[in-house]
């Protein structure tokens, strides 16, 4: 990217090091903008969908059309709020936590393939990288819970840690058959394996279909959404790990959660739902790729929202039961079966 910048007439005289820094900052800025705007959009759509499901309106006034700027107004409000510190908090940890949560989502955005040439960093270990960065979130959750010096927050953090770490296993195992099939961890390569008509999508392969459902459900747990929203559980743990946060720090948790929702949906789309391909070859023009990718991801985000307003939540031991005794065995069996079939067929 810094080469592109050096071609601009205004910047051509600058040394290469400055250009690299400039390129990094602007790329970061673009991603940050995407997350902020995207997050706000998801928050608004969550409220509208919730309103629709619950036979009410949701936000209606700010921004004119159906309260479309409500999230912006909320953001401004949160920015202007007093930053309240718990006196006995572990300050460094407590301050770092929202950043870690946000960083997890932020770093994952780097590799999301919106189109063949529309990707921040085309890493060969893209999938692996996303799994790693999204685990950063749990570090934030733990430091928030511990740093707050509040028992409810600590309980939330413990639940969050146990949950995210456990559900990463079925999540990873669900992705593995696809990786075996495509032979690559590069997100672009995985998508290209699904080019052409819709039947090429991994979703429509029976074994990958099982993987897909395990992935979708585990990803709900990964981003702490109902029915797995145990780290927050308003009715039990007051507000879970972010009980003590106000203002912008709270906003970072909030934004991080919604950005994460998009990340897991985008990975789901990449691995199972054909990524940027529409499923009809005639429509697959490069200009439409980002749009198709984003629309599909939005659909999965919508499913998450829809489930949140439909289902009750599990108890913490039931959550662990589902993970260790149901998903992991199924995912392992599925992986084994795929390996055997693949070996036999080849």
């Amino acid at each position, binding site marked *: 990217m810094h080469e592109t910048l050096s071609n601009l007439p205004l910047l051509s005289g600058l040394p290469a090091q400055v250009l690299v820094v400039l390129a990094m900052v602007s790329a970061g800025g673009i991603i940050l903008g995407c997350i902020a705007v995207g997050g706000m959009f998801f928050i608004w759509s969550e409220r509208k969908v919730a309103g629709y499901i619950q*036979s009410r309106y949701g936000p209606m006034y700010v921004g004119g059309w159906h309260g479309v700027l409500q999230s912006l107004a909320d953001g401004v409000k949160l920015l202007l709020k007093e930053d309240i510190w718990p006196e006995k908090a572990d300050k460094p940890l407590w301050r770092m936590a929202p950043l870690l949560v946000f960083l997890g989502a932020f770093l994952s955005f780097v590799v999301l393939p919106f189109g063949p040439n529309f990707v921040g960093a085309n890493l060969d270990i893209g999938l692996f990288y996303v799994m790693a960065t999204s685990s950063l979130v749990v570090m934030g959750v733990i430091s928030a819970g511990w740093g707050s010096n509040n028992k409810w927050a600590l309980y939330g953090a413990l639940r969050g840690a146990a949950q995210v770490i456990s559900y990463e296993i079925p999540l990873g195992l669900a992705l593995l058959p696809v990786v075996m099939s495509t032979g690559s961890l590069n997100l672009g390569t995985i998508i290209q394996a699904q080019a052409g008509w819709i039947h090429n999508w991994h979703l429509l392969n029976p074994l990958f279909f099982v993987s897909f459902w395990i992935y979708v459900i585990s990803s709900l747990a990964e981003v702490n959404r109902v029915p797995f929203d145990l780290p927050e559980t308003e009715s039990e743990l*007051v507000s879970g790990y972010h009980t003590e946060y106000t203002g912008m720090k709270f906003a970072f948790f909030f934004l991080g959660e919604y950005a994460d929702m998009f990340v897991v949906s985008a990975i789901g789309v990449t691995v199972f739902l054909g990524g940027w391909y529409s499923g009809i070859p005639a429509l697959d023009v490069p200009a439409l790729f980002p749009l198709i990718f984003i629309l599909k991801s939005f659909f999965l985000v919508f499913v998450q929202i829809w489930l949140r307003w439909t289902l*009750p939540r599990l108890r*913490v031991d039931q959550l662990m039961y589902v993970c260790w005794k149901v998903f992991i065995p199924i995912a392992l069996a599925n992986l084994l079966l795929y390996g055997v079939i693949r070996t036999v067929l080849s």
Partner: protein
Amino acid sequence: MSRRALEHIASEIGADVVETSDELGDASVTVRPSALHRTLEFCRDDPRLRCDLLLDVIGVDYPDRAERFDVIYSMRSLSTGERVRVKTRVADGEPVSTASDLWNSANWAEREVYDLYGVPFSDHPDLRRILTHHEFKGHALRKDYPIEKGQMCYVPEKLLTDEEIRFGPQLYGRTMDRSDAVVEEEEISSDYLTVNLGPSHPATHGALRIEALLDGETIIHSKSEIGYLHRCFEKESEDHTWQQIIPYTDRLNYVSALTNNVGYVLAVEKMMAIEVPERCQTIRVLVAELGRIMDHLVCVGTNLVDIGALTNFWYFFNAREHLYTVVERMCGERLTTSYTRIGGLYRDLYEGFEDELRHSLGKVEEAIGEVTALVQRNRIFMDRAVGIGAISQEDAINWGWTGPCLRATGVDYDVRKASPYGGYETYDFDIPVGENGDVYDRVLCRIEEMYQSIGIVNQAMDRLKPGPIFSEDRRVTMPPKDEVYNSIEGMMNHFKLVFEGIQVPAGEGYGFSEGANGELGFFIVSDGSGNPYRIKVRPPCFPIFSSFTELVKGHMVSDAIATLGGLNIIAGELDR
């Protein structure tokens, strides 16, 4: 029937019986303090009486008497239907032997008498203040405690003792096997965490406090504290006229205010032997059932919210909103209705009431259908609710449970069927009962009860005929205006009713009805003046909540929250 019960008791207890009475058909026996425990045990165990349900323990203060306090145990039998009150008289400071070894429900009820009257109970396991603060000086319901005297109390009560916290593992056992862990003597207490569930907690909404000792997320021991919403309803009542108390009854159970209004006026009318016209009776049944429906909508809705299913709450509250619109047009208020009057009603139904109500009930049925479809066979909900907070029939009765929570265990006790009042015997309805007495059964019982109540409301609407809504009895009813203007008797009557209020004849009585949460009782003592001498409410959720800490022992925090929601604790009537 009550006379026979008195004879049984008199023949058993013999010379220790001071007095018996069956005033207003309530069997009441006064015994010496030394014979109290024996009498109570007899009433509970004798096959002819079988008073297995201790409803309430009531204190009354007569400062001019040497034996200053009456302590009254009010009981009911679920098998024979007998209601007996056993009374004893004690001087200031003289202990009464506790009945908490006979009924668990006596524990909190006696604490209340101790708190508000200062009557000590010997051998009571946990004699602490309950409704007032632990720093409070004096006893609020004594006649010599000035009604306007407030006290500032600051230090919160420590519920779990240091010993309980430090030696929790030895006292209550471990839930997990830690035999392989090397635990230093000094570190034992670090295994457990104490948390305050409330009062500032979303599930206890500022009105309840539970201090729990947690092992991981399992509650191994807990204690609860109530009284955050105590506002001296009973003391205030003694300073008001009988009609003026009606607005206070709204605030006892603000979720089903209409049902409470009806319960109170029924009790006073029982004392005065007043018959109300048929239309008035029908409307009272109708509004009492509306109150029940609204209560169950709130209870089931919020219980589901506590389990994480948020949308059901909106479905139910939308339906409730439709009902509230009707209620608002009916009496001008939504929450605090004050719709009934002693001897009648505030005003008649408005034009078009029936059409609007039928429309609203349709919306309620629709909402119940939607929620039932969402939760009844929902695997996650069943995992969270089946077997959680379960209680056996015997235990539930021993703890003094009534209402939907008791019926969820399979006991079909409903005051509307067991001792019908206000014409309930002429309506066709069923009493839904559960099996396991868990959260799931409580939710389903309430849902079915709503359908039954809708049925009753529809029947009541069908039989509504034009007619008077006020009793003809001039002791409670204002004379017509032409009488007031044209005759001295009419004017006197009007004057006395306005200035002195209704005069309830001296005596005591217990009026009861089926509140939304269970048996709602008003024990009334009148000295013949314009104000009540004593009103004691029997709030259905007081005994229910007293068993909460036992109910959640060994369960997880999430289960405790789900259980709490299913019990439908209304702080207004719990704390009064």
